[in-house]
């Protein structure tokens, strides 16, 4: 569909050269050297958590001379009487809730933008694209004031409501692009069979939209999981804390020499993100490559 004589992407065969050339060795050497520098902080983080706290600083060795799990025991002990698993559970509830809300609301809205003709559609689509560039600071203060007056500060509601109302324009855009690529004949055939928009959306479009739904789910999960500002603003009771703000509290409260436990908790907070990365890296990287989603 995209191939024309002038914009033909390189055929894969042309990229595959036969035989070994010294240039390849140079290339791989250079890339691996950069990779080592880039991944050094990750390796240092992982290995430091296995060292006794006293050995983390002032010690150039990457590998621990003695392996201990004490840091993880401390981190899993939680903060101020609240267990680590409570934070984990709060993060999980918010992340899963966000995925459900974002996927549902974005898919429904995207169907309207992509497949139904009605007056005002172009205008609203333009506005939706405009909100992509809007900094969230423009809305956060009145939102906080209203949620405060409704007594919703210190609940998950302010953090979830926007997800159910399709405020993440990027995901709508992603799905609109995807739906526009599907042939018109699908809708027309379904219409001739007597299907209305609800049927067309639910039985025809939604199953075909699956790749975009998966990409959206992964990014929505990770963004919510790592979100710091929202929980910092709305969650005051440590029982409701998500992992990022719990980690911040932990860092503020623990003595500065206890880096081992701080880093162990930082690692634990990233475990689901690493798991998602390992399982879904193709979806993640392709999502970035084709839609410009950022990490």
């Amino acid at each position, binding site marked *: 569909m995209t191939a024309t004589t002038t914009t033909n992407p390189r055929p894969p065969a042309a990229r595959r050269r036969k035989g070994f050339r010294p240039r390849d060795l140079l290339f791989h050497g*250079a*890339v691996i050297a950069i990779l080592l520098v880039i991944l050094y902080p990750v390796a240092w983080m992982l290995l430091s958590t296995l060292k006794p706290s006293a050995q983390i600083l002032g010690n150039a060795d990457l590998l621990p001379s003695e392996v201990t799990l004490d840091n993880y025991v401390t981190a899993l002990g939680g903060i101020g009487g609240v267990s680590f698993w409570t934070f984990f559970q709060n993060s999980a509830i918010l992340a899963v809730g966000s995925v459900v809300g974002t996927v549902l609301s974005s898919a429904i809205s995207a169907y309207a933008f992509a497949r139904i003709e*009605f007056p005002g559609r172009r205008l609203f689509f333009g506005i939706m694209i405009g909100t992509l560039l809007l900094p969230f600071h423009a809305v956060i*203060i009145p939102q906080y*004031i209203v949620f405060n007056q409704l007594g919703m500060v210190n609940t998950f509601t302010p953090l979830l409501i926007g997800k159910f109302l399709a405020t993440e324009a990027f995901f709508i855009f992603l799905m609109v692009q995807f739906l526009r690529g599907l042939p018109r004949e699908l809708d027309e055939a379904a219409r001739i069979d007597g299907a209305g928009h609800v049927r067309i959306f639910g039985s025809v479009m939604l199953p075909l939209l699956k790749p975009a739904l998966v990409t959206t789910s992964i990014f929505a999960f990770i963004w919510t999981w790592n979100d710091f500002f929202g929980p910092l603003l709305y969650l005051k009771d440590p029982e409701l804390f998500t992992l990022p703000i719990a*980690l911040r509290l932990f860092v503020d409260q623990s003595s500065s020499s206890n880096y081992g436990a701080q880093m162990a908790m*930082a690692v634990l907070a990233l475990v689901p993100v690493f798991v998602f*990365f390992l399982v879904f890296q193709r979806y993640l990287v392709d999502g970035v490559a084709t839609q410009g989603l950022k990490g």
Partner: protein
Amino acid sequence: MSRVLERPVAPALPPTPPPRRRRRRNWSDIRAGYAFLTPWLLGFVLLTAGPMIASLYLAFTDYNLFAPPQWVGLDNFTRLLSDPDFLQAWKVTAAYVLVGTPVKLAAAFGVALLLDKATGGSGFYRSAFYLPSLVGASVSIAVIWKAMFIDDGPIDGLQQFFGAAPGGWVGDPERTMPMLVLLSAWQFGAPMVIFLAGLKQVPRELYEAAEVDGAKARHKFRHITVPMLSPVIFFNLLLETINAFQVFASAFIISGGTGGPARSTLFYTLYLYFRGFRDFQMGYASAMAWILVLVIAFITVIFFRSSKLWVHYGGDEGR
């Protein structure tokens, strides 16, 4: 993005005139359209447009959440202009945007050019380089970054190994900004993946034609790669610039929630947070929020205006 890259083939047949029934308003479509649009419309009115209007009003008031807002006219704005912390916040943010974004994009472009030459393993490299972008904005990485740059941390160890004076970067107001710029540059993976996708779209034929004409590598880079990639460069530059204005978690964690040392990490977002949610000066913070919106809008307009001069939506000049 993909609309830029995926140009549909020009239709072979002249377009048929739309059937007459299309002209008539289809009420069931209109009803369905607005029904399906409801989630977004509600979200837009309640969580975006409404709050924006409210914060525009609040920007001209004095409001602390407890007493009703007091209209003060332009007072917040005149106070901002003589507020040394506001000016410092702009200085810090501008330095981060102006240095951090080019450094990050240069790294992304450089590594993308390298990976484009890959003769294998590029899928693995792409994923590995992308990992920091996925985790970089998290509190966890900010905690690690702080530990790396603290006194006696690995960076301090490295600089002592090379004979530099000992001392961490975290407590040194001169070096907190380089430290945050490095953290930003470390996350070059996402723009790199986008550059790489763009590079794959550059037609081989252009390079081959240039080689026939005897073009050297730098000529090909200057006259083929850069112009062909200019839409992608534009996209990355706009996105990364706007994102750089909004950095929060890393500066908050690394400064221990203070913006210090010596206000060297007092980013605009941090100062806005302090004013709005620590001091509860909602009117003052709203004025700050609107100034940020206007600055970002202005920069976006400049970017789009300037794009006419240097962005080539190529591919069909020959037709």
